């Protein structure tokens, strides 16, 4: 196992992974109260989407402005299960039809719609969280990529898909909870997800799943498929005339990104306690692209840092200058796109890293062992990426 990992990932990449793990598993939980940590958990759910975007946009060149759709689908699947558990006949005795979710009762539904039935089962729900977005993505992707719709057109069509789904969810409120979403979720198999201890557990589950996705993404990027994606982005025709079915690869990577997003959405529902159509629309979908762009569209780790950083900035800004944060966000987006197209990761590898290396290769030293030169300087990135610990970063 150990050797397999070291075969797949360079020691250098592993070091960076370890630093992120250290940050998320040790530093943040120790330095934050559960309220802030729960916020970090929420931000991390966006980084699932950002990782997916690194794969399909950064590597595959496919910009989707509808990732919120998949985030939402995953989140709704989870929310449906939790809502059913919360809607026991006892808890909903006040309704005209006890035992169904409250919003259905308000909309004169007298029995649970058929597509809600299977969500009584947790196993089915887990399956659905993956399968529903994957199948939806598959349909969209097959229709588009087999006909070679790409680039800007793909972006705009995914945007329209997001618009359609939002209107549908809001309009069909008897089945979906409408604009309010599915709220007031309480327990998972009797385990109260609103308590502090549950929030800790969910945070760590979220981190674990995040690393699962990170490893999967890294595996894909380091495989031949990753190089093919780069090749496709550059010269699609050449790849095609080297005997590859380009659309199959695009479909695969788009579905994979959708699945990542859906996992993020499900974790969002669990940690925040509700799901609403405001994640399915165009605005959140574009914001998620921005997280990815800020972190660096070619770096999966960058995507995680990007999602964390932008959201921390958003929270901080809106707490201290509520009327100014849009200016700051707008400027950030423009700045990143114009000055740092490869985002934080680009700045890191082109500006910071060489200097640190130079620092370590300074006079008086013989060439340091390879392990030293990579692991020691790499200790800084996590800290400088960690806005909660500014003093640490400067130290």
């Amino acid at each position, binding site marked *: 196992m150990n050797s397999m990992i070291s075969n797949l990932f360079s020691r250098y990449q592993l070091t960076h992974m370890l630093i992120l793990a250290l940050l998320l598993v040790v530093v943040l939980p120790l330095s934050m109260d559960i309220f802030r940590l729960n916020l970090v958990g929420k931000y991390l759910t966006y980084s699932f989407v950002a990782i997916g975007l690194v794969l399909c946009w950064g590597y595959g060149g496919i910009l989707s402005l509808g990732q919120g759709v998949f985030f939402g689908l995953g989140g709704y699947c989870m929310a449906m299960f939790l809502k059913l558990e919360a809607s026991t006949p006892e808890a909903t005795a006040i309704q005209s039809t006890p035992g169904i979710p409250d919003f259905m009762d308000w909309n004169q539904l007298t029995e649970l719609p058929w597509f809600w039935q299977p969500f009584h089962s947790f196993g089915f729900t887990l399956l659905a969280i993956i399968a529903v977005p994957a199948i939806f993505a598959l349909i969209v992707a097959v229709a588009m990529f087999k006909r070679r719709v790409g680039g800007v057109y793909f972006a705009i069509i995914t945007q329209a898909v997001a618009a359609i789904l939002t209107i549908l969810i*809001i309009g069909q409120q008897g089945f979906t909870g409408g604009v309010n979403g599915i709220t007031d979720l309480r327990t998972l198999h009797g385990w109260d997800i609103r308590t502090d201890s549950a929030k800790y557990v969910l945070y760590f589950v979220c981190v674990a799943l995040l690393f699962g996705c990170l490893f999967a993404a890294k595996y894909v990027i380091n495989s031949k498929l990753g190089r093919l994606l780069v090749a496709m982005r550059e010269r699609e025709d050449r790849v095609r005339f080297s005997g590859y079915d380009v659309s199959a690869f695009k479909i695969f990577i788009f579905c994979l990104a959708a699945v990542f997003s859906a996992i993020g959405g499900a974790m969002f529902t669990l940690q925040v306690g509700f799901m609403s159509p405001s994640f399915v629309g165009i605005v959140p979908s574009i914001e998620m692209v921005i997280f990815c762009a800020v972190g660096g569209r070619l770096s999966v780790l960058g995507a995680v840092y990007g999602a964390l950083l932008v959201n921390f900035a958003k929270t901080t800004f809106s707490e201290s200058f509520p009327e100014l944060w849009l200016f700051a966000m707008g400027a950030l987006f423009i700045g990143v796109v114009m000055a740092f197209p490869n985002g934080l990761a680009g700045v890191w590898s082109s500006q910071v890293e060489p200097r640190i290396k130079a620092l370590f290769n300074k006079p008086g030293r013989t060439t340091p062992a390879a392990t030293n030169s990579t692991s020691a300087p790499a200790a800084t990135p996590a800290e400088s990426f960690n806005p909660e610990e500014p003093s640490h970063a400067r130290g």
Partner: protein
Amino acid sequence: MILKSRHYDSPKGARRSFLRKMLAIPAALALAHASLPALADDANTTGLAVTKDTVKVGILHSVTGTMAISETGSVQAEKLAIEQINAMGGVLGRKIEYIQEDGASDWPTFAEKAKKLLVNDKTAAVFGCWTSASRKAVLPVFEQYNGMLYYPTFYEGLEQSPNVIYTGQEATQQIIEGIDWVVKNKGAKKFFLLGSDYIWPRTSNKIARKHIEKLGLSVVGEEYYPLGHTQFNSVINKIKLKKPDVVYAIVVGGSNVAFYKQLKAAGIDMTKEHPLVFTISVTEDEILGIGGENIEGAYAAMKYFQSLPNDNNKAFVDAFKAKYGNDIVIGDVTQAAYLGPWLWKAAVEKAGSFDIDKVRAASPGIELTTAPEGYVRIHENHHLWSKTRIGRAKADGQYEVVYESKDLIEPNPFPAGYQ
């Protein structure tokens, strides 16, 4: 359904109206202080952000995003109320300090900020939220961390939380009186229901339909358009074909502007009242964007209009204009938001403590004779007893009050027979 109010002449009411006068006469401030109960240490036993001189509360509205348009008035009203309360000596001798958070028109952000206000800032009360969606998002947070939310908007009902005081009207209060009036006074027989496609308009129209059908009258059409829809020519054509007596419109946000402008442009002169346009969603705030000349002649049913001719309201409007400029308008929700801090103050003083549980226990029965809308009282179900008025829109953007319910109307968030 409508309970006769016998509280106008109660001793408590007299004291409140006395307080109201003091509001107008700052010279009486010292007296107000003197009338406060002696402070004991049990004013705060639950670790709220209360010191010897200050108490922290939260204001949680959207100041950015699409809802900022609507929520700004509420923020202004809450700040004004807090300022006035502080000028009168605060609550239990403490000055109110507010922490304002931006919900950014985004429901999860509301939940996040609500949690911050309760968990980190330990605020003793939160005045905030506007849309039902934002309230639904914060509700579990308030229930879990036992906070107190004063929610200002008229809304669909179907909710009653121990942690929320609903200072706006729930749907039946607003709707039934209005329909009765239009049937009785305008001889309306055929209604066309119209709304933005989400829960409040749908639930409200459901109540309206049930009531209309109970009266033996007919609904000739019911239509919903997505939020943010800007093209209403199709539905206007349907209205023309169906020839209803009343167009009952619950369109919200930017769609409102489009709807009324297009209605007028399509040759439906609302001042002719055929069809009569009746709304429960357009306050003076919305008319600002629609333009008075585009909605002149439409009727609205709410509990408050800026033009209400009473002394409380005059003082309130003057104070509001003095603080925010002469051009400012005040809508129903703005007034309801203004009630929040005052209702909280009264409950805290009745309880003699900031503790949430004690404030909650003290809340039912709290009455406010100083309210700009007149007199309100908190019901056991945490909604307000209030009157419903009907206003006719004028070209200058104000409503002319043409009717006022005789008695206070009982709030009934779970109306039997209307679900």
